[in-house]
């Protein structure tokens, strides 16, 4: 049996950026682009059931790495192996449509994440109850607060019960009650031997306390992988030196 949930081998990713910022939209169409490297030869193996925390400064490549893992970005080179059902929770309101209500969005996102319609319909009320949005279930999402949308997204992902969960910082927008609830949900994920990859730049994040290994990124490269306390200490030193 394959022991790895995620295997990244020599992943490179760059974005096209304009050489000059002062050009009109029309001129940009025909202008020369330059490449900005955002992931530089990344190799990482994540075992099944492992809880990984990725930390680093803004712009270090954390979110891009998560998007490459989830298949949203195609890497320029390198190989990706994913073993299991992946649920990405990459930004607030994952795949939600603001004109639709909670139920419609749950069904829509559930279908996109690979569930059957009959299966999702059975879970709609559970998702809404867990997110504590019963009173607002008929309201279009455009009237929801950021925290309410994050709660709905997280609640939906829990009901999908994926093998691999990729989370990008979004839990920090919820209130304390929601964060505590999410913390418990992650614990139950761990108990069920699920794989979680959590991206954060907040060292005070309580979720870091439960990670098995931490990854420190800087300038699109992995600087250090190892014990969370050691990586966090290194990150603090790193930031102090840069400042």
């Amino acid at each position, binding site marked *: 049996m394959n022991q790895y949930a995620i295997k990244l081998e020599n992943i490179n990713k760059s974005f096209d950026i304009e050489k000059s910022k002062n050009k009109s939209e029309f001129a940009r*169409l025909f202008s020369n682009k330059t490449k900005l490297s955002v992931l530089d030869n990344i190799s990482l193996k994540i075992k099944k059931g492992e809880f990984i925390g990725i930390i680093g400064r803004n712009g270090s490549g954390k979110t891009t790495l998560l998007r490459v893992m*989830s*298949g*949203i*970005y195609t890497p320029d080179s390198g190989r990706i192996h994913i073993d299991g059902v*992946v649920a990405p929770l*990459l930004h607030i309101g*994952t795949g939600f449509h603001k004109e*639709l209500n909670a139920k419609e969005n749950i069904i829509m996102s559930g*279908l996109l994440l690979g569930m059957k319609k009959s299966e999702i319909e059975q879970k709609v009320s559970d998702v809404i109850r867990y997110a504590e949005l019963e009173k607002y279930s008929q309201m279009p999402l455009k009237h929801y607060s950021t925290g309410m949308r994050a709660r709905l997204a997280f609640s939906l992902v829990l009901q999908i019960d994926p093998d691999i969960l990729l989370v990008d910082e979004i839990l920090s927008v919820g209130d304390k009650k929601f964060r505590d609830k999410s913390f418990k949900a992650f614990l139950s994920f761990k108990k069920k031997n699920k794989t979680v990859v959590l991206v954060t730049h907040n060292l005070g994040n309580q979720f870091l306390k439960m990670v098995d290994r931490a990854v420190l990124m800087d300038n699109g490269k992995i600087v250090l992988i190892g014990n969370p306390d050691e990586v966090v200490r290194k990150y603090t030193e790193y930031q102090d030196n840069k400042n």
Partner: protein
Amino acid sequence: MLLYFALINIKIRFKGTKLGVAWTAIEPTLTFVLLFVVFTTIRDQPKENFGVYLLTGVIIYHVFTRGTLGGLTSLRSNYSILESINIQKEFFPVVATLATCILLIVQLAIFFGLMPFFQFIPTWTIILLPIVIGLLMLLILGFSYILSIIHVYVRDIQPLWGITVHALFFITPIIWYVDDIKGNDLGNVLMSLHAVNPIGQIVELAHNIVVFNTIPPLSDWLYTVTFCFAIFLFGYYVFHKFDSKIVEVL
């Protein structure tokens, strides 16, 4: 799954309007009434079955216009999904085309509902209409592939396509007859444009089987089928050539 998303697409498309999906019927009907009144007034003796002729062209043109415009915006309008979930990008132009196909049912009901008003009874040749509708959908999907991917890179394609479909209205045999324009210089220009206008070819096939009760020659069918498949395959190729960078560019 496709059907659910097509229904959601329709719901969002008419969100905020008071009459909702009824606009699918009202819009081509009002266009038809307006053109019918104008052309039966300026022509002393309109041709036999002009009403059905005009209605056939208006509905096909309207379906093509709305379908391609819906397809054009299909990627940009679903950006929040594309940046969150790994999904086949072509899902969205396909869903937009399926939504157009569902709305066509409403328009066909109007079409057949108005036939008694013109005291028109179609003959057996109308059984070929599903083939024409199939070609129309293939054409819309092909254009949706091309336009949606261009729209990701160049937003100007949206107003540009709006102008293009206006021009298509005049070079498509909706308010004029193919037989009437042959022989003069302007007519020859129009015929040359008609020959490379795929929607014009589809409208002509539909006129033959619905209004003139004739089966078009096999060469006409082959020409239109080849044309529609060529656009579909070209669209499919172009879309897949550039679809890997959609999320980054958006």
